[in-house]
């Protein structure tokens, strides 16, 4: 009867979905094994303070169920600071066991969701010497401190507020672009960025753009902003790019995951993820290379590339016209075959990169298994050396996909061979993708 009344009382709670742990707690009071019940409830909620309900009946001097509660929560959420709650003792768990469990299964990136990020990151830094993205270890206090933004700094977002506004096509189409620019100027607190935006507004106004009537197209304005306003900042570097923004599932993937369940990641899917990161980082590196140029160089590049594109378009049309007249309909068939061969070659090229990314993941797994004490940075360095030395070390039957050829070709910055990697970017992308997919 008591259980029934508890169940009826819990029914409204059930409507407050997402509180499974809280619902479990309701039943723990009357449960014959309340310690394990409260333990499960606290672990499910991920709240170390709820472990205080675990009394440790039958034990004196130690409280192993409570220590296990803290250990499991720390292991699940990846917050080593939870291990400080462990009391230890005879037949119980130790703080070291707890920390080992956390560090085995998590990286410092898990601290983003921690209640006390600084404490969490400091614990990682004490073991691995690294505080993670956006933080550094203060030598004075030996605690992780958030990095401040520089005078012309940007945060981790790839798009700035003004660029976000520039992409609001609807607003631009209704002539609200200048209003958006005014709002951006009002909201900007960084003095150097503010000066840049004001100069930009002046430039537009001198060019005849009035507040109510913006005739220039959005692309032209974006181009101008990129040439005159944007500046390179070290916080844009590829090794500071947050990988989760590239690899986190989108809305449709989330819906698919909840309807059908999550698929176990395969070697192929991890390699594909690594290549997605590489692609995004290459794009960023391209932007950085552009921004590192002086303003005159940027202007020159913009003008010559526009002229070149126009020329190429015109030329292709003229050539196609001439050949079609001479060769007749057969010309079309040849171009289709050419496209098919080209796309096959592109597909085959892609398989080479997938093979190389998969080789990195496999060899890193092998080195990690044989030398478990290595930190992430050392592990990455050894993996890169190992892959460069012998890309097929763990996969002698590589078949037709000779991905090692990519490493023999010159770097993309030096040569014209499409089967190349940009050394500045590729290995960083592999490292970051590995850490993300092995969380």
């Amino acid at each position, binding site marked *: 009867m008591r259980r029934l009344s508890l169940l009826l009382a819990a029914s409204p709670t*059930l409507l407050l*979905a*997402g509180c499974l742990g809280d619902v479990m707690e309701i039943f723990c009071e009357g449960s014959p094994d309340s310690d394990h019940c409260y333990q499960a409830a606290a*672990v*499910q909620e991920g709240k170390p303070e709820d472990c205080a309900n675990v009394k440790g009946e039958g034990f004196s001097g130690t409280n192993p169920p409570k220590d296990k509660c803290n250990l499991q929560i720390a292991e*699940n959420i990846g917050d080593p600071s939870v291990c400080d709650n462990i009391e230890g003792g005879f037949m119980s768990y130790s703080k070291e066991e707890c920390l080992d469990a956390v560090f085995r299964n998590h990286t410092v990136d898990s601290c983003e969701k921690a209640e006390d990020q600084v404490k969490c990151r400091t614990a990682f830094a004490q073991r691995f010497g690294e505080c993670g993205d956006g933080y550094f270890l203060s030598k004075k206090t030996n605690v992780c401190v958030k990095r401040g933004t520089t005078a012309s700094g940007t945060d981790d977002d790839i798009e700035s507020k003004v660029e976000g506004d520039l992409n609001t096509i609807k607003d631009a189409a209704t002539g609200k672009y200048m209003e958006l620019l005014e709002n951006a100027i009002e909201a900007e607190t960084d003095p150097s960025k503010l000066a840049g935006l004001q100069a930009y507004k002046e430039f537009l106004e001198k060019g005849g753009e009035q507040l109510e009537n913006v005739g220039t197209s959005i692309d032209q304005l974006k181009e101008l902003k990129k040439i005159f306003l944007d500046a390179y900042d070290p916080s844009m570097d590829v090794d500071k790019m947050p990988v989760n923004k590239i690899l986190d599932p989108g809305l449709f993937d989330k819906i698919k995951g*909840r*309807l059908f369940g999550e698929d176990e990641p395969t070697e192929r899917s991890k390699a594909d993820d690594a290549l997605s990161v590489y692609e995004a980082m290459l794009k960023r590196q391209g932007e950085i290379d552009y921004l590192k140029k002086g303003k005159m160089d940027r202007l020159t590049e913009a003008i010559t590339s526009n002229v070149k594109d126009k020329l190429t378009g015109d030329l292709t049309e003229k050539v196609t016209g001439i050949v079609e007249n001479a060769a007749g309909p057969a010309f079309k068939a040849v171009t289709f075959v050419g496209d098919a061969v080209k796309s096959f070659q592109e597909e085959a090229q892609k398989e080479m990169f997938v093979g190389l990314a998969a080789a990195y993941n496999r060899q890193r797994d092998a080195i990690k298994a044989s030398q478990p004490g290595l930190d992430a940075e050392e592990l990455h360095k050894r993996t890169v050396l190992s892959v460069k030395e012998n890309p097929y070390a763990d996969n002698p039957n590589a078949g037709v996909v000779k991905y090692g050829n990519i490493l023999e070709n010159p770097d993309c910055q030096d040569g014209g061979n499409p089967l190349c990697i940009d050394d500045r970017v590729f290995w960083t992308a592999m490292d970051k993708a590995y850490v993300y997919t092995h969380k």
Partner: protein
Amino acid sequence: MRRFLASAWYPFLVCLVLAGTTAGALALLAPTGEDVGNSEIVQWVSIGAWAVGPVFGIVAFLKIGILNLLRRIMRIRKVKWLHPVIVLIGTVSVGFFAWILAGEPPFTPIARAIVEYGARPLLWGALVSSLLAIVLSLPIFFQRRK
């Protein structure tokens, strides 16, 4: 058709579909319980999971009934389009609950079992019944002009 949409058969049919689709989804998804990690929990949940569809079907039907009663008290029964909206509230709220439950972190065996055996099939049931509610209610929103 409009008489059907104004009657109690409409929410009854939608809730029946919710219950049936949930049970059908459980049969089709056929969870094995391998990831749960506790065979006793799997044993009990795999029996109780068949009741999830009917239970939430009844809950949705009761919710719809209460909202329609409020509609009657407030004397807005003649607003025909409100009835499908109320039916949709009934099914979508169940879907929302299932969505949040399916997103529960898999930290304990009981959570893993509830997600696999309860939340996922219920999400399917809510999705299909909501779509049915929308499709059946289209005649109200696209009235033919006489």
